[in-house]
């Protein structure tokens, strides 16, 4: 491993730069703005899963006092686009209109009212008359693929759909070698098919946007988004407004997790403001957040593994994934592809590998981006099949991983064949501490002591399980992030970044990277992010790109500024610019003589050869170095009630150098708890008519503080030479471990392999009973 440099600011758990405002309740969120004359916008959602709008009459609603306008498909731009916040050209179909003459899920947009108050807007919604021609719904993957299934997207002007007539949004099929031959040649073959459920991100702040015209009649969208630049572009496209007339600002936002990597409300708000000249506020209710925002892709994933008995090494891996992408195809292709691209390379020893699958339309709530982005669904069958394989081979599961996981210096043909949509990018692993992660994790959980013991306490049986997972750090050759740094005459710097802090702390860690290069403490860096007028481009917060991609841009910009500082200071200190080091807020010569940064900037701003010390730099990554996690869990299964309690969860994580250890741990801890909810209690229940039956936190149960086990996150640092300061990303990977780890632990405890999430007490009890009567 390359020598890890000693850092002054990087590697410290600095307090978040936005922390004070958050902990004192300052009005820094979207809805905390109050402008006079603001219109409240309410959206009429479809009561049907699939229907044509035959007639829509908004005249009564429009005439109501206090109503400024009513939007329907008859008076809004018909431009088909994708709501997916991805780089252009987006790898998602253009299958969405602002308002369509067809509705495709219960809660789909029918109309919107902008009025003086929420109450007036709601009353006006009730006055809109709609005649529907109900169509047969499509309520599952199997129904979607059946012969003669109703066609969800039969419009003539949609583009980018693989086969609309068959409800297939995307189709992926890549292979390496010959898996059939590989399985033939394997001594042991294991196969499993797993199904994952509809789940929702439930950010505590629902989707919200505040739009208004500025004094130059430009449209300003103050929005809770992960992708401000994509919002600007897609709104321009959907509304037919030039990009130069739109400014998107992301203030503080209350969580995203992928739900806000989407243009969900900004088009409506923008249109209302553009038409009326008045500010507009739209905030989804919690119920709408469940029915009409975005969800996880439910998937059916089959994994087949073939291995050599003597060595325990995999010869062949096959993964087949069918993804339910709901009523619209946003993220349909890319989540599907990611299911294979972020899982299979982990086991690169297999000479034969195949990933294939489809994403299909249904007339159900719309999945989108969600932390893990398909990898989470893929690890369920992969890591439980590995567990089953270990048993068949008589090898310890940890040892089986050791013999098979990818290592430094190695690559995988999957990297090249499968990216986030089409082809990927070849890469060789340059940092990987999985060995140590496995060792440390196993020791902390008490793997050797406790596994297989089925310790009983009352009606509960204990069990241990483990898994290893990887993710990526950004999308190579596609993602781009940029940073601008300018200097002030007190030696402070403004850091302007497009990168989007969803609460993850990216403002802070990017500030730390700049501070490290410039030799100043963090408080000398003033971070402004995510304002399309002032901050340079960044794709936004997704694909675990911020630390690795945006971080590199910041590092480069800081290095350029450092050069300029050296250029100003060198003649004053009488030495070579290259000999100057920046530390303790000064430029320091080898002699020890120093010039404060404040002095340097004053000189450059006012005194001689004046210029603004500033630089902008960009980063397009050429690879996506994966972080790695070894997960271990101890569970207790109540054999009388089926209830599964996670007692202890250990995650040993290699994310390169942790720029801010507390924030890196925080990402892992939050993702793990979210993953535990996804594994045990979270499930959107869908009625036989396609309606979400439990659209509330009362009946969609996410983990509360009473539900979290003892969680230990251990940062096992590596040094990633291609990453800023040696860092890789860590935003998503934590959510991939809990499902397979808990499934494997349940097997250790009660000998039952569950293949359907969530592992509710009822499902577990039923499985235990079925196994004991078999």
């Amino acid at each position, binding site marked *: 491993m390359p020598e890890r440099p000693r850092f002054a600011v990087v590697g410290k*758990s600095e*307090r*978040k730069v*936005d*922390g*004070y*405002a*958050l*902990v*004192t*309740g*300052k*009005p820094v*969120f979207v*809805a*905390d703005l*109050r402008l006079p004359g603001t219109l409240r916008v309410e959206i009429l959602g479809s009561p049907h899963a699939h229907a044509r709008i035959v007639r829509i009459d908004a005249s009564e609603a429009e005439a109501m006092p206090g109503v400024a306008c009513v939007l329907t498909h008859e008076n809004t731009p018909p431009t088909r686009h994708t709501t997916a916040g991805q780089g252009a050209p987006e790898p998602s179909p253009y299958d969405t209109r602002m308002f369509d003459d067809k509705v495709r899920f219960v809660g789909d947009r029918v109309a919107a009212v902008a009025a003086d108050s929420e109450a007036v807007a709601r009353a006006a919604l009730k006055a809109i008359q709609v005649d529907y021609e109900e169509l047969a719904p499509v309520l599952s993957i199997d129904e979607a693929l059946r012969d003669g299934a109703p066609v969800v997207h039969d419009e003539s002007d949609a583009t980018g759909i693989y086969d609309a007539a068959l409800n297939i949004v995307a189709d992926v099929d890549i292979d390496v070698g010959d898996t059939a031959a590989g399985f033939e040649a394997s001594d042991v073959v294991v196969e499993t098919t797993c199904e994952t459920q509809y789940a929702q*991100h*439930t*950010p*505590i*702040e*629902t989707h919200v946007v505040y739009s208004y015209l500025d004094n130059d009649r430009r449209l300003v969208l103050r929005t809770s988004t992960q992708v401000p630049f994509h919002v600007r572009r897609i709104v321009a496209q959907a509304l037919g407004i030039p990009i130069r007339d739109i400014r998107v600002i992301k203030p*503080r*936002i*209350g*969580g995203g*997790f992928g739900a806000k990597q989407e243009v969900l409300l900004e088009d409506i708000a923008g249109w209302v403001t553009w038409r009326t000249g008045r500010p507009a506020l739209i*905030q989804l*209710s*919690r119920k709408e957040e469940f029915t009409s925002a975005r969800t996880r892709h439910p998937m059916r994933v089959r994994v087949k593994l073939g291995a050599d008995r003597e060595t325990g090494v995999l010869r062949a891996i096959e993964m087949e994934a069918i993804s339910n992408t709901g009523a619209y195809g946003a993220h349909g292709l890319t989540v599907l592809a990611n299911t294979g691209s972020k899982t299979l390379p982990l086991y690169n020893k297999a000479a034969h590998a195949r990933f294939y699958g489809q994403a299909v339309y249904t007339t159900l709530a719309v999945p989108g981006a969600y932390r893990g982005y398909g990898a989470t669904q893929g690890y369920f069958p992969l890591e439980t099949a590995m567990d089953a394989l270990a048993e068949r081979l008589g090898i310890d599961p940890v040892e089986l991983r050791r013999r098979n996981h990818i290592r430094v210096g190695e690559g995988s043909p999957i990297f090249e064949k499968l990216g986030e949509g089409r082809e990927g990018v070849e890469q060789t692993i340059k940092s990987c501490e999985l060995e140590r992660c496995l060792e440390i994790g196993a020791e902390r959980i008490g793997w050797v002591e406790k596994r297989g013991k089925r310790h009983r306490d009352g009606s509960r049986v204990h069990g241990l399980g483990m898994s290893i997972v990887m993710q990526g750090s950004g999308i190579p050759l596609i993602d781009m992030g940029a940073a601008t740094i300018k200097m002030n005459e007190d030696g402070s710097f403004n850091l302007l970044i497009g990168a989007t802090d*969803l*609460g*993850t*702390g990216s403002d802070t860690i990017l500030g730390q990277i700049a501070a490290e290069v410039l030799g100043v403490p963090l408080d000398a860096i003033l971070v402004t992010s995510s304002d399309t007028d002032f901050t340079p481009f960044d794709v936004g917060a997704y694909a675990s790109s911020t630390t690795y991609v945006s971080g590199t841009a910041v590092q480069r910009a800081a290095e350029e500024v450092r050069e300029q500082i050296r250029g100003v200071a060198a003649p004053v200190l009488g030495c070579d610019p290259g000999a100057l080091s920046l530390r303790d807020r000064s430029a320091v010569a080898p002699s020890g003589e120093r010039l404060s940064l404040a002095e340097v900037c004053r000189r450059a701003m006012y005194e001689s050869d004046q210029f603004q010390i500033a630089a902008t730099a960009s980063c397009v990554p050429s690879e996506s170095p994966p972080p790695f996690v070894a997960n271990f869990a101890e569970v207790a299964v109540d054999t009388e009630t089926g209830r599964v309690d996670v007692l202890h969860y250990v995650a040993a994580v290699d994310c390169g150098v942790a720029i801010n250890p*507390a*924030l890196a*741990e*925080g990402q892992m*801890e*939050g*993702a*793990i*708890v*979210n993953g535990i909810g996804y594994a045990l209690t979270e499930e959107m229940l869908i009625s036989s008519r396609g309606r979400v039956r439990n659209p*509330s*936190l*009362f009946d969609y149960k*996410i*983990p*509360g*503080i*009473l539900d*979290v086990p003892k*969680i230990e*996150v251990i940062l096992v640092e590596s040094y990633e030479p291609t990453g800023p300061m040696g860092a890789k990303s860590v935003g998503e990977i934590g959510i991939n471990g809990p499902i397979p780890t808990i499934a494997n632990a349940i097997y250790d405890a009660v000998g039952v392999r569950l293949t359907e999430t969530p592992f509710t007490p009822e499902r577990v009890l039923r499985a235990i009973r079925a196994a004991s009567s078999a």
Partner: protein
Amino acid sequence: MTITLTINGERKTLEIAPDESLLDLLRREGHMGVKVGCRTGDCGACAVLLDGRAVNSCLVFAAKADGREVVTVEGLERDGLLHPVQRAFLDEGAVQCGYCTPGMVISAVDLLSRNPDPTEEEIRQGLSGNLCRCTGYVKQIRAVSRAAAVLRGGDVHA
């Protein structure tokens, strides 16, 4: 109807609608630290102190606050000094997006005012009505413990 109440130490006489929630009243009076998460009492983001007790302000009629004292997260800072709970949340890295934070802090302040030396289990029980999606609660539990120690040491504002 009219009510008179104290908000963060300031006496106010306000016109309210009979069915208005305390949450909506506080936000329209500019206390944006009181957050909207669900409006059904399931998430705790709207928590405030009512006569010293933490409550979901979305579940309390504004009319009920007549003659009573309300403290929001904005009222915890004194003369530019953070309340130990606020400080501990910052120091322990217990704040990510910060949307649940005001409600968490309020619940923690209530808990510690009644139980100055809570066990971890008691901290969990005290915050059981506050949902967070970012942090996994790990650092929040530590923060409350740390704040408890500071408060026991007599250092009310730091």
